[in-house]
Structures are given as structure tokens and as C-alpha cells.
């Protein structure tokens, strides 16, 4: 079904100027975070569209990048002071993605050249923006730490050779999204490369929204915080009173 859909898409879209271009779709374009949300998997599928037979030469590669909303973050370094480890230096990073996953058909340094990485901002390091007046050399250990910490917690992932490419034409990639997603627009970019040069790019969006009860409680806590606080208290008082009343019944 999915493949059939991919082919339909391939013929429906107008021809691009390049010799080889991407046609792709996503298994879902919106994600609702409900009470029982435990993470989800998105399937990125597509095909390479050609006017002429595939040119001879080195094979094609595909890179899929899924990127969460950017936020400013503060990275702090602990230092030993009076025998206690405490936060000392801090560095504010203007913008860092809350989630970043890269999936490729082969080792990243083989499927992508450095110049094209700089131009298209593909690797995680390229996606992080420092404040304009920052000295890069000073903040290097902090940005390295950001990558390390978020890679360890699974927020930043590089899955080399996880994209399946068949006959130089059809491809698919599964990208797992964690359970601690934040709301916002997630950007999906698909790159077609040959010998490290980017031939074509395609961009899609996935909207991530809290839904149902989650949506209701979250917006209540933001927009009607007094009411929300009183609701939490009422719940606590009721539960405390209820429990002691029920247990007193049971004792008799």
C-alpha cells in the first residue's frame, strides 16, 4: 500500500529541474500526545524520480533528518568547590533542537561531504546556534557537552546505515520518537546525495500536539493557573478525606 502510494505521489508531482529528485511521504503528519502516549515511530518512505535511466557511477545515498523544535538551553559545568560539586560556569546556547535524529544509508562521513554539510546544516553540530557575540573556542566544551548529554539520553541520535535503499530507487527509513516529546512543529528533511554531494532535498513537517485530557490540563495550568492550583488542592483534600473515611468504614 505504502509503495503504491509512493508511486502515485511520484507521478502526481510536477517534474523537477534536476535529473534525479526525491518523492516522499510520511506515515503520519501529526502526532497527538494523549495520556497513554509512549513514543511513536514514523515511517519515511519514497522514491527517486528520474527523467532518464540512472547515470552510471557511484551509487546514490539517502539521509533522513528529523528535527524537533528549537529552544535556548543553558549548559552548566560543575566544579569542585570546598569539597562540594557545584555549578560554576554556564554558557547559554541560543538555539538547540529538542530532538534530532539522523538516519543514513551508509557511514555519515562517506555519504556527506563537509561543504554540503555546512551548506545544508545536516549534522547535529550544525543545527546548534550560539549567540552572535559568542567566542566559538570558549563555548566548544559546552556545545560538546550538550551533544554528549543529549546523545546519552536518546534525544540526539545518529543511525548510520539504517535507511533501506532498493535498486537505487525506493527507500524507507523508520525513525523512533521518544516518549518525552515536546510540542511543536517537527521538521523532516530528506537528502539525496552522490559522492557526498547533495543532489536534492525535500522537506516535510510533522505537528506534535498534546490532545484530550493532556491538552486540557496543560492549557488550564498555563491560562488559568489559579483555577488549576485550586483544582489540584481540591483533589488532594478530597483524596485525603475520602481515604480516611473509607478506612474508618472498613474498620467497623
Amino acid at each position, binding site marked *: 500500500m505504502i509503495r503504491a502510494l509512493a508511486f502515485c505521489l511520484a507521478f502526481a508531482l510536477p517534474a523537477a529541474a534536476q535529473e534525479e529528485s526525491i518523492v516522499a511521504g510520511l506515515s503520519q503528519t501529526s502526532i497527538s500526545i494523549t495520556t497513554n502516549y509512549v513514543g511513536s515511530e514514523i515511517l519515511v518512505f519514497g522514491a527517486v524520480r528520474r527523467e532518464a535511466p540512472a547515470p552510471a557511477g557511484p551509487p546514490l545515498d539517502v539521509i533522513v533528518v528529523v528535527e524537533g523544535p528549537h529552544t535556548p538551553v543553558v549548559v552548566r559545568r*560543575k566544579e569542585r568547590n570546598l569539597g562540594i560539586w557545584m555549578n560554576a560556569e554556564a554558557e547559554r546556547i541560543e538555539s538547540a533542537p529538542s530532538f534530532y535524529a539522523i538516519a543514513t544509508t551508509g557511514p555519515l562521513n562517506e555519504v556527506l561531504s563537509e561543504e554540503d554539510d555546512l551548506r545544508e546544516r545536516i549534522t547535529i553540530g550544525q543545527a546548534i546556534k550560539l549567540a552572535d557575540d559568542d567566542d566559538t573556542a570558549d563555548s566548544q566544551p559546552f556545545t560538546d557537552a550538550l551533544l554528549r548529554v543529549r546523545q546519552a539520553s536518546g534525544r540526539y541520535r545518529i543511525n548510520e546505515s539504517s535507511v533501506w535503499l532498493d535498486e537505487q530507487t525506493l527507500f524507507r527509513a523508520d525513525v523512533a520518537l521518544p516518549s518525552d516529546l515536546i510540542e511543536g512543529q517537527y521538521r523532516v528533511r530528506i537528502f539525496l546525495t552522490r559522492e557526498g554531494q547533495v543532489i536534492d532535498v525535500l522537506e516535510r513537517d510533522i505537528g506534535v500536539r498534546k490532545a484530550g485530557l493532556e491538552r486540557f490540563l496543560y492549557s488550564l*495550568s498555563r491560562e488559568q493557573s*489559579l483555577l488549576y492550583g485550586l483544582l489540584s488542592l481540591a483533589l*488532594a483534600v478530597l483524596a485525603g478525606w475520602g481515604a480516611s473515611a473509607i478506612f474508618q468504614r472498613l474498620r467497623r
Partner: protein
Amino acid sequence: MQIYLPIAEVSINAFLLLGLGGIVGFMSGMFGVGGGFLITPLLFFIGIPPAVAVATGANQVVASSVSGVLAQWKRKAVDVRMGLVMQAGGLVGSAFGIAVFARLAALGQVDLFVQLCYVLFLGVIGALMLHESVRSLRRARKATTLVRRTHSHTWVHRLPFKMKFRASGLYISVLPPLAIGAGVGFLSAIMGVGGGFIMVPAMIYLLGMPTKVVVGTSLFQIILVSAFTTLMHAITSGTVDIMLALLLIIGSVVGAQVGARVGVKLQAEQLRILLALMVLAVSLKVGADLVLPPGETYSVTPEAVQ
């Protein structure tokens, strides 16, 4: 069964939270403390953001205190007047604590300050309690009853603004109860605890209140102060997670009733030694995290986008 918490923005097993609430409730029922000092560090440990853990912990304390105070109320073991005076102090302390919390969060030192508070207060109180109960256990063994004067006059009794507290049988200045209330309110805001573990010794040793009204009065005073703290956290930083609170509360109110049943069967001195050891263990664990070299010296905090 995984459940997504709307404010903490993490997905956690619901039974883990129910169990956590149950264990803490069991202990609080057994020892007659709110259990906030246990639940907040445990929430840190399972990956709840510290700010959410502190605010939600305060909400859970409200539930367990309401549950506890009802039983005490029937026994007429609540000094309402003393409780109200302490609450007045508590509100001031809590408001001040909330402001300090927000300021420290901006400086990135909130974790350190919370941890230091834990080590200091739990360490001192735990050590005092252990010392005291071991001594009285020994005394009981020797079977020599030592008479303790109920009305030893100290500097506390020479302060102005005296007031009658009939249920406690005291005629003392309102200043010490106000100050104790304020101190506990401050800690409630910073540590997400009710403060019973500080208030109970303070009422007995500083104010000379009779032991039978101490637990009920402290629970009574904790309700309003932690309710105020919860409300302030909800309004100023929006960090109270109602879903997390609900699961913890259900676990803890059930646990508390079971714990109270078990507590009756144990000897009071043994109970106090157990509680002292537990308080010391929490303090040592938090202290070790401060002193031992961390695995990762960097930490990442997303800045809230308003």
C-alpha cells in the same frame, strides 16, 4: 501501564508512581510524618524535573496531612490556636521561599541549595532523633524513670506578646511559634516537604508543648502552608503536575492507613530509631551525590520560552 504526565512532559509507569506513593504513605502513616522528605528525592531519582517534583510533592503533602489530621481531630489532639499562629508565620516563610526558589533557579544553583538543605536538616534532625531514642531506650532497659520537667522556663518564656494556648496548656509569647512557622514555610517551598520532621521536635523542645497535641497540631499547620505553597508554585511557575499528584496521592493515602495500622503494633522507641535511621540514610545519599565526583560534569537545562 505507561502514562504521559502533562506538566512534567515525561511518560512514566503508573504502577511505579502508585507504588512510590504507597511506600511513602506507609512510612508516613507508621511514623506520623508527611513523607515529603522522601517523595521529593524519589521523584528526582525516577526522572521528574526537580521543579515539578518539589511543587507536586507539596500537593501530595496536603493530601496526606488532611488524611492524618482527621484522625487526630477526633482525639481532640489539635491545638487550633497554636496551629493558626504558626500558619500565619508559615505563609510569610513560604512566600519568601518561593521567591528565593525562583531566584536560585535563574542562577542555576537551585539543585545545590535544595540538596544542601536536605543534607543539613535531615542530617541534624536524624542524628538528634537517633541519639535521643537510643538514650531513652537504654533508660527504659535500666528501668529507672527519669522525671522530665514539663515546664522548664527558658528564654522562650521571657518574650513579649504572650497568648494563651488552652489545648497545649501554655501561656507563651506568639513570637517563637511565628518564627518556627515561618522557618518551616520556607523549607516547605524550597524542599517540597511539609516540615513535620522539624516542627515536631521544635514544638516539644522549644515551646514545651505536650506530646499528645504535637502531631495533630503540626499536621493541621502543614495543611494550609503546603496548600499555599502548591498554589504559589502553580501560579508563578506552573510546575504542579496534577496527574502525577493524583497517582502519588492514591498510593499514599492507602499506604498511610496500612502504615498507621502497623505502627500501632510497634514500640514507640523502636519506631523513632527506624525513622531516625531512614532520615539519616536519605541525608547521606544526598550528601554523597554532592561530594563524590559526578559521572558527567555538565548539565543541560532548556530555558523556558514564554
